[in-house]
């Protein structure tokens, strides 16, 4: 390494630059602090630039940089202001949002209550939009003044703020010509949309006038879509990209062994859940469900197959989210499982265990381990590793006993999970779950009051924990690998790659 010599000319130039730097305006100072180009490699291809028309994790990772939601959620599950400065439930079915002043879209038009009214009414009324079904409970969205919006709902909708963290705000002008707007969209986010090469990458550039002065920290952001994990990892190891998501446990040691790469992991907002078909002979019998649960050695799965990149489950709702409680780990007791099965007269039981091909890390190995564990207590398991669409059809038709699945609480709120899987209407073509007690508690838990919600969700989970309509084998862990040039990277629990505040050396 050579040491730079301080010459007279360098001294004069350097002092001049220093003087200049102290005299610049704050925005220019921000621009100076902002430099570099981060390239991220995401696991799924982006399908749309419309924030209301997808539930894709990769699309969200990209679009959260272009559009801001009303509320944000932190990695420790706190709901914090974004475009709404504050919000409040006036009663069980009325919410009031006070908006941030002085925010502008990338094209210079101001963000106002009209934007919120437009965005919310659009997602509710255009039922072709993928997110539309979530907002069907909205009755009216009213502009009180330029910075105040009131939302009334048809029934209590306590998880509305949580869902709003997933909905980017659009300018009302998007309404006239949606195709044209989404070809080159504008939001209020820290980055402007530049270009999208379909199937390959998206380019964004810094929004110098972003309302949050601490962001963005880089000039350019590129998201490349690299679905194959080994390819994603190779690009990171070759120094072509700076961050990758969805790393599998068995890739961790390779990445950790590469100089210049750090691996980050964090407990995800996801619980694995293998659900029983409750109308079929095996799943209908609570004793069978209990025996199956007792026969599965969850800790071995976590330790041996997932290499420790998972956490033992103590309640269906993962830690950090409203409703989480500690009900204690489910025991592993094959002897008791055998005794229960014998008592119940199920000496030669066969279960169809359906998997959605290649969806979850190590799922086939895990299913094979479970088959061996259940075989040990006299239950034969047919593993049916089906293509995703076919597996889901089989589930609708009820042709399974146990179904390998997981639930990521993307809004950081469990209402969606309970409402979908433990109400008669939701579970009808899925698990056939039907328990009026649980249904009643779910309805009561929809109110905005967090204390009431916590209490109702605890009650629901006590019933479920006892009844075991599902096996909850482990909470998932989100793993990312990052170049050590990145500063301030936060491994998100919701699998998103958010680079608002990330800088590059």
């Amino acid at each position, binding site marked *: 390494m050579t040491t730079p010599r301080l010459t007279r000319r360098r001294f004069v130039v350097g002092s001049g630059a220093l003087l200049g730097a102290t005299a610049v305006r704050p925005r220019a100072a921000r621009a100076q602090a902002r430099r570099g180009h981060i390239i991220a490699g995401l696991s799924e291809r982006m399908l749309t630039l419309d924030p209301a028309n997808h539930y894709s994790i990769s699309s969200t990772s990209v679009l959260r940089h272009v559009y801001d939601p009303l509320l944000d959620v932190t990695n420790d599950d706190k709901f914090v202001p974004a475009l709404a400065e504050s919000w409040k439930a006036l009663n069980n079915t009325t919410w009031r949002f006070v908006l941030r002043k002085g925010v502008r879209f990338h094209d210079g038009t101001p963000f106002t209550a009209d934007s919120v009214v437009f965005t919310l009414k659009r997602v509710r009324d255009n039922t072709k939009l993928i997110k539309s*079904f979530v907002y069907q409970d909205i009755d009216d969205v009213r502009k009180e003044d330029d910075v105040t919006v009131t939302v009334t709902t048809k029934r209590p909708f306590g998880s509305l703020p949580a869902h709003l963290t997933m909905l980017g705000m659009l300018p009302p002008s998007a309404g006239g010509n949606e195709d044209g707007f989404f070809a080159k969209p504008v939001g209020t986010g820290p980055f402007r949309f530049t270009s999208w090469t379909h199937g390959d990458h998206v380019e964004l550039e810094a929004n110098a006038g972003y309302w949050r002065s601490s962001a963005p920290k880089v000039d350019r952001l590129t998201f*490349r879509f690299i*679905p194959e994990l080994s390819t994603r990892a190779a*690009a990171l190891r070759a120094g*072509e990209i700076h961050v990758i998501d969805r790393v599998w446990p068995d890739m961790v040691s390779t990445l950790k062994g590469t100089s210049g790469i750090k691996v980050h992991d964090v407990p995800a907002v996801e619980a694995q859940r293998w659900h029983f078909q409750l109308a079929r002979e095996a799943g209908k019998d609570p004793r069978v469900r209990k025996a199956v649960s007792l026969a599965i050695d969850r800790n071995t799965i976590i330790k041996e197959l997932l290499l420790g990149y998972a956490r033992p489950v103590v309640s269906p709702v993962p830690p950090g989210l409203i409703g989480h409680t500690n009900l204690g780990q489910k025991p592993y007791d094959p002897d008791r499982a055998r005794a229960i099965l014998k008592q119940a007269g199920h000496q030669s039981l066969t279960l169809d265990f359906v998997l959605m091909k290649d969806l979850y890390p190590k799922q086939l190995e895990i299913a094979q381990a479970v088959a061996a564990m259940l075989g040990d207590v006299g239950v034969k398991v047919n593993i049916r590793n089906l293509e995703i669409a076919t597996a889901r059809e089989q589930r609708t038709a009820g042709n399974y006993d146990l179904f390998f699945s997981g639930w990521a609480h993307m809004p950081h709120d469990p209402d969606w999970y309970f409402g979908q899987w433990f109400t008669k209407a939701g579970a009808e073509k899925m698990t056939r779950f039907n328990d009026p007690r649980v249904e009643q508690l779910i309805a009561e838990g929809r109110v905005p009051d967090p204390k009431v919600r916590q209490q109702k969700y605890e009650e629901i989970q006590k019933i479920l924990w006892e009844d075991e309509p599902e096996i909850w084998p482990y909470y998932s862990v989100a793993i990312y690998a990052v170049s050590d040039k990145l500063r301030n990277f936060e491994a998100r629990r919701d699998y998103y790659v958010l680079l608002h505040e990330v800088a590059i050396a």
Partner: protein
Amino acid sequence: MRAYLLRRLWQSAVTLVGVSILVFVILRVIPGDPAKMLLPEGAPPSAVEALNRHLGLREPLWVQYAIFLRSVVRGDFGQSFQYRSPALRVVIERVPATIQLTLAAMAVTVLAGVPLGIVAAVRQRSAWDYASTVVAVLGQSLPNFWLGIMLVLLFGVTLRWLPTSGFGGWLSLVLPSVTLAAFPTALVARLTRSSLLEILGQEYIRTGRAKGLGEPRVVLRHALRNAMIPLLTVLGLQIGTLLGGAVITESIFAWPGMGKLVVDAIFFRDFPVVQTILILSATIFVLINLVVDLLYTVLDPRIRYG
């Protein structure tokens, strides 16, 4: 010739209508619900039903087919379920990457395969011949995914000479095209060798040599030209296959080509995109076959269509 051409074009049209009906029906018979694949797992059945209605999937099959035919005539091939934009546009966006990869792989195939075959034939049972056999056997037996990953690890990660993946610039073409060309290169080398050997034993070659033609002229001008006929058929079919996409190579190199698009579209039950790709690739196949048949007459003046 003209009557022949018209007859062939008519046959091609009938084939393509047949293909479109077949693809259309098969997609709707296989299990899987497009709306369920678009919506998250937690969408209520009512939302699934509503979306299927929006997508037109609750109409009788013949009405759906009529709507599809109308969209073909209109020129957009219907709306992609996943991308929510015209299916033809979604497919066309992948064409540059697909064509680039196809051309590059074909160039490697011809530039490597034909000389290998010639050398092996001309120097039969020499070290050259055995070396060419080894290369050909390797090319045909190494699985694409393994070869691709090894090339990435060597030239991308370890040596850092070439980009590991992605689409942009000719450098990014090198690894995927070599991976993709491995198999057809081997095929072409073997084929060139065997057909050249057969022709080199013909009497007119002996005549050529007897009248004092130089060896390069005999081999390249007289023998190779005749050996090109079976080669051309194989190359034509290879181009057709490659244009239809190369799923494994595209996956390894995150290459935005047609192969991965069609596989993803099948997984997600994006019917309009699958229909568009299959009908377009059937069209390309039919046309290339036609062109290859016509090229025979150029290469071999004895072949005449009437």
